[in-house]
């Protein structure tokens, strides 16, 4: 029973960063721009967030600072991919290396430093429910927010005028323009939103999940998030499933290692990446999901 609670609880906290980045990139992709830079935005968010949290002890401040820097990195991607019309995959890829360099540089004095703060906040009453209480309702505020995020994104994308406009840019920007809106501005907003959300995921990762800063700590989670947008068929409400499956893969990896199960840790560490590849392969055989028209050109 205790093992189950440990696994479920760490599934949620390991899946949350991916959930943020996934919903972020999904919004960006609905506007026709793939933000491969969410990996970098997560890293920037993790670093800036950890540095702020370690100095001020405030999760709110940490999140705000991370959002600003994540948004700035995403702005670079928006400029290169939208204004300069560069290959959006290549520019996102380069921005990730830029983020690795920047965070290694600025985070160098925070390596191995402890946070000195615990952001877990039990929701009263709900946290007493057996199993669900200590797993779902005994997390941090950012994780609670992430529970709502896919639903909020779904509501925004399908039920509000701005959300539908954003989707129309991904399908037929000419039409959006003909209706008197600026497709490029909407794309800018979508890409920056993607970066900001990914950065929040980064904060959750460094201040709640690992509770430390390490160089290049995101280690491909952003790429996984970018890749599994296909698995959700560009529908935000489906983001829970892939995010928590990958959270589970990571939770099991740590769990098996702690329990001393004789599987090489490198095999278990490989699992999330292998699973992503396999999942993408399976979805592509079964059916072609409704891809935004503008993305069909590049894939």
């Amino acid at each position, binding site marked *: 029973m205790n093992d189950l609670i440990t696994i479920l609880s760490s599934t949620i906290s390991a899946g949350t960063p991916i959930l943020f980045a996934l919903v972020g990139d999904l919004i960006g992709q609905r506007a026709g721009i793939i933000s491969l830079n969410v990996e970098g935005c997560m890293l920037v968010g993790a670093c800036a967030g950890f540095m702020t949290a370690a100095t001020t002890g405030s999760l709110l401040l940490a999140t705000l600072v991370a959002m600003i820097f994540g948004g700035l990195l995403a702005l670079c991607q928006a400029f*290169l991919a939208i204004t300069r019309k560069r290959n959006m995959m290549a520019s996102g*890829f380069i921005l990730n290396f*830029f983020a690795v*360099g920047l965070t290694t540089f600025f985070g*160098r004095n925070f390596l191995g430093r402890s946070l000195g703060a615990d952001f877990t906040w039990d929701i009263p009453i709900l946290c007493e429910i057996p199993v669900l209480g200590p797993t779902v309702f005994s997390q941090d505020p950012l994780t609670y927010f992430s529970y709502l995020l896919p639903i909020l994104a779904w509501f925004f994308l399908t039920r509000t005028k701005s959300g539908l406009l954003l989707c129309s840019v991904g399908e037929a920007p000419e039409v959006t323009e003909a209706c008197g809106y600026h497709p490029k501005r909407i794309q800018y907003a979508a890409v920056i939103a993607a970066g900001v959300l990914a950065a929040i995921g980064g904060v959750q990762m460094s201040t709640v999940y690992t509770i430390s800063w390490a160089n290049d700590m995101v280690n491909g989670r952003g790429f996984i998030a970018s890749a599994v947008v296909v698995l959700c068929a560009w529908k935000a409400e489906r983001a829970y499933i892939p995010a928590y499956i990958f959270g589970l893969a990571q939770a099991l990896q740590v769990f098996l290692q702690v329990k001393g199960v004789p599987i090489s840790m490198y095999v278990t560490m490989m699992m999330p*990446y292998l699973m992503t*590849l396999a999942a993408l392969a399976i979805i592509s055989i079964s059916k072609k999901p409704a891809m935004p028209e503008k993305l069909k050109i590049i894939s």
Partner: protein
Amino acid sequence: MKLQLLDKKTHLLDHMWLRILICFLAPIFLFGILLVSQGISPILAYKTIVTSVFGSTYTIGEVVVRATYLILTAMAAILPARVGLANAGGEGQMTIAATAVAVAGSTIFAEVPAVIAVPLLFVVGMLAGAAWAGIAVICKQLLNMNEILCTILLNYIAEYVICFLLYGVLKDPHGWNYPQTVEVASHLRLPRYFGTRVTFGIFIALAVAILVWVVLYKTRVGFTMRTVGGNQTAARFSGVRLKRVQSLVFAASGAIAGIAGTILILGVEGRMRTDAGATMGFMGFLTAGMVGNSPIWAIPSALLIGALDVAGNGVEIATGLPAATMQILIMLVLLTIMAVGGKKKHE
């Protein structure tokens, strides 16, 4: 339809030399600001960069050693780019090939004379690289998956496969428990020159770069490839078997990354370690991107990125900054080129 005729106003950035000047000065300036913000003298840093690159024959040799890998991994990115694919997996293809060569060179080829064994080891490396690229080809052509994401994911998978092997079955039993393979037989190693770590590999890399250029611009095959890269619909209507060309080119690019892995082992390393050749595949991709996928210009580009990479160690010693700081400068150069560079011809 936009009226193209009305769109002909000249822009300040249309002057090529101005653009080159910006690409050169802007990163140096921005990086300088970054250093000043941390209380580090940029003059000291730039001086260190110059001295740690041109300080001695040995340091220049180190630049050439890195450029060897970078030229090859850049070619592995350039070839697929010319048929409309992107290979971001040079890293995985190179290190998987290096592992295969390290194993083959220390076991089955250990007793074979170099004249026979070395060419065969290159074949082993090329096959291993092509096989790893082949996974991405299957993902792309049969399953219709995005090749950039596949190759990026395969890089991570390659990293863990190699760790798994080096900590497991391939670990040298007499290696003080370090995660490394048995050393390749000494008579199979490539000759070194000038008292540096420069090996015969640089000539192979240059030859491959020239070969890529000749194939691309002087042969029928290259013409077909460029047609595919330029306009896939036109290529298909003119009878090109698109998927076949793309798949073969992608596998060939894996083989070229495999050559880089072979040189890594037979040249400098001698055995596979977990971090041998790390980042050379990624940097090769960027080396190619920096010069718009031109095989000849990739050579100076590789030397520049190699030099900045070597300078990282010097900067670490002189200023106490992590070596990865140089990555910021490299990426600033690339981002500036992307931001102010010219538009592609076919856009």
